[in-house]
């Protein structure tokens, strides 16, 4: 399995991280080193083994579906890079 430049660019796009074109070859090489290491997992016989979903077998707790918190607009927005009139502000999304 080898990652080419096109795959590296696609992964960067999916991860929403801008990567300059000239940084792609080094990145692809690093990916290949790491994936080469991960490839070892192919040696393991996993026939009939369930993938782990919870490391400590436990039933998730349930609670009544009621409002437990709220009315915290000021706190919610207090760390926003750009907040206006009680909302998060972002560049135009709708064409």
């Amino acid at each position, binding site marked *: 399995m080898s990652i080419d430049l096109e795959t590296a660019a696609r992964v960067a796009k999916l991860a*929403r991280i801008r990567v300059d074109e000239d940084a792609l070859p080094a990145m692809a090489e690093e990916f290949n080193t790491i*994936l080469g290491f991960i490839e070892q997992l192919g040696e393991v016989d996993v026939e009939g083994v369930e993938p782990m979903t919870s490391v*400590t077998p436990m039933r*998730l707790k349930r609670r009544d579906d009621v409002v437990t918190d709220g009315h915290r607009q000021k706190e919610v927005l*207090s760390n926003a890079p750009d907040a206006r009139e009680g909302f998060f502000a972002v560049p135009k999304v709708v064409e």
Partner: protein
Amino acid sequence: MSDLNRLTIAEARDKLRAKEVTSIELTEACLSAIEGAGALNAFIHHTADLAREQARAADTRLQKGEAPAMCGIPLGIKDLFCTKGVPSQAASGILNGFKPEYESTVTQNLFDAGAVMLGKLNMDEFAMGSSNETSVYGNAVNPWRRGNDETALTPGGSSGGSASAVSADLCLAATGTDTGGSIRQPAAFTGITGIKPTYGRCSRWGIVAFASSLDQAGPMTKSVRDAAIMLQTMCGHDPKDSTSADLPVPDFEAMLSGDIRGKVIGIPREYRMDGMPEEIEKLWSDGTDMLRDAGAEIRDITLPHTKYALPAYYVIAPAEASSNLARYDGVRYGHRAKLDQGDGITEMYEKTRAEGFGPEVKRRVMIGTYVLSAGFYDAYYNRARKVRTLIRRDFEEVFAQGIDAILTPATPSAAFGLGEMEKADPVQMYLNDVFTVTVNLAGLPGIAVPAGLDRQGLPLGLQLIGRPWDEGDLLNTAYALEQAAGFVAKPAKWW
């Protein structure tokens, strides 16, 4: 009274209760020690005013009597913990300026018990690293040196600032977190004790998430007794974390008898790695002898899937990280990139994340994205989760055979020089976690205890792995090991 910052939690607690010292005196001693230790770059956000305020409140409480064990104890808090109104940025540029409006459950538990926060501690960015070299604040430095050699060494990672601060007596103890070894490896590199409890013991609420199925908080302390005292306060059920265990927390300190007669200690043959340094091998066999001499039965065991733990970890942890770190989009908190004319929301995400994340974080987020992407999910992610099942099963089988705890080295080497791994490929750095990562994958408790010095005078640690939810028994075995090893060395002050 001088050197109050050098006290253990247990010593300080007894002196506070006997009214021999006050919390404000302890706190001032630590604040001066911190002031003189800029060269270690361990504390990266200082909260002296808050510390004094908390110390005065603790003293009032102590005056009234019946204060909890942690009351008035000055601590350092890893930057991964959200602390209300205090910068909490997981050592990342993307959380620049972030001041949470809430308190993490673990720090809240500590504060409720009267503990004092001196400041926030350096770490690897988003806890991704084994040397504290990926931090936006720069490297934390190990107070230990190789004899008279002035080379700056790593305190380990990701809880490098915590390890450096405790080892250098800048605080009485510190919080750490451990996803693949981030408490135990730095503890071993700096000659201190660090325990990662069973997954679910400590609430993860308010701790910046790296890999949610692996992350656990734990104490980093100067002794096993201190680890027992502080862990007790940190854990407990929390409805705000759905994976938090609703189980009673025993009195860990009361379980420290040092009597391990009849306990069965497993020595896993798969941990004897090719090319393991002789000194690590010797430390391990010395530790085995110590436990045998203390009356434990030593048994060779096998954990056949050990070899696959690191590769499985480097699928699962990045996969979870890519999902957890998707929230850093420049909208709700932290950094947002300056946009060019015509840039839309996608450009905002891409530029913000390119600027805000460091290289190791980007690498892991992208590896995680890749292994979760269409066509590779089964080949990588599902296969790794199946291997994880097998790794846990290995442990279940040896525990079912009557093993009480497992003894291994904590790290494959002593602390290395900062910058020494720069040219190595990322996988070389990942090998630091080879002895610790199995414990996270299996959700077990593990503790690193300092057990000796190498030829260059650097500390080395041993790891004990326990049964799930049996931290009390594990701490007691660690206590017996600590007593037998008699590790008392401290780094010579150069900073």
